[in-house]
């Protein structure tokens, strides 16, 4: 086909485009994924029975804010990465802030306690299942994020894949926190972060499927 004919055809196909398409597409993919993930958590693990009383503790909100702030920052980075030529370095750097903040809190908590207590603070009672569960609960969100990115235009596929993975991981961790009754900063900063990072790695490995 001649390029002029192509231009005719594309011009004939023109329709006004809303400026909120990128945000809406991502929100749709992530919303559907998060919903599926929440239902999976409910049926599989169940919401912790003491949620109402736990919601009065700062430990609960630490997990809540940590995972949600990571999810929001990763969403912002993904929203930038979905657009050709839009910088995303600031957003990706900001992702370090919640991690560093929680690390500081974790060091304060393990400072000056006995060795046994320190182990207990770090390992909790569920360290062997926590990262796995987070990774598994992230998968529906992961699928939603990749579906949405596939409709947009990421030009750095591996970076976009990693960020979409971190976004899904943070979302999955946020949902897992409705079940998990661990309450120490060292536990969360180690095992939650590990689960989230694993999903990020999966995203990087799957980046090439974002090709368009």
């Amino acid at each position, binding site marked *: *086909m001649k*390029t002029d004919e*192509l231009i005719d055809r594309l011009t004939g196909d*023109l329709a006004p*485009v809303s400026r909120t398409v*990128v945000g809406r597409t991502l929100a749709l993919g992530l919303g559907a994924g998060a919903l599926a993930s929440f239902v999976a958590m409910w049926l599989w693990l169940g919401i912790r029975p003491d949620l109402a009383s736990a919601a009065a503790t700062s430990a609960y909100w630490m997990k809540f804010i940590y995972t949600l702030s990571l999810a929001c920052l990763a969403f912002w980075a993904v929203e930038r990465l*979905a657009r050709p*030529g*839009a910088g995303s370095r600031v957003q990706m750097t900001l992702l370090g802030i919640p991690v560093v903040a929680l690390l500081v809190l974790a060091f304060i908590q393990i400072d000056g306690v006995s060795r046994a207590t320190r182990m207990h603070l770090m390992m909790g009672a569920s360290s062997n299942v926590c990262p796995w569960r987070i990774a598994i609960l992230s998968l529906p969100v992961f699928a939603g994020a990749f579906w949405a990115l596939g409709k947009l*235009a990421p030009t750095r596929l591996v970076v976009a894949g990693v960020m979409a993975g971190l976004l899904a991981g943070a979302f999955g961790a946020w949902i897992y926190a409705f079940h998990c009754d661990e309450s120490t900063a060292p536990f969360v900063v180690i095992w939650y972060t590990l689960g989230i990072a694993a999903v990020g790695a999966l995203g990087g490995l799957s980046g090439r499927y974002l090709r368009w």
Partner: protein
Amino acid sequence: MLAAEAQLKALMLSALGGNAAAYRALLTALGELLRRYYARRLGDAASAEDLVQETLIAVHTRRATYDTSLPFTPWLYAVARYKLLDHLRHGRVRTAVPLDEAGDLFAEDESEAALARRDLDRLLELLPAATREAIRQVKIEGLSTAEAAERSGRSEIAVRVGIHRGLKALGEKLREGRSREDR
């Protein structure tokens, strides 16, 4: 450059609003820019034009990803660069070899004529006998299709079609071999 940016951005904004005249002007201008962009980076004009078209389609289908608060040309060149890298990484091979150019497949190895002839014989072995003879007579010995038809007692059209199919099949076999070596 700055003038171009302002002009292109204005056209893009009208196009996003649904203005077809602005959109046509935009795509025409982008066609020119992209042709220059790809011509400078790829030796071969045909694949440059393929990429121009592919990028215009990408501009069309992904136009909603342009953030209107940012300049337009960085978006465009990010798309163009992505399509260029994608092309270089997944270099698609043309599937049809025109009959006139098929001779090039054999002409490449003239410096090592003997080796080439051996390879050629081996390749021709893969074809049915009638096709093999027709190709040998017309493409290697230089007979006309009419003469070859007379010798084999088949119609000229049958000889021509046979040669065409045979060369196409050979081209595919060569390409398979080559892409295996590339890996």
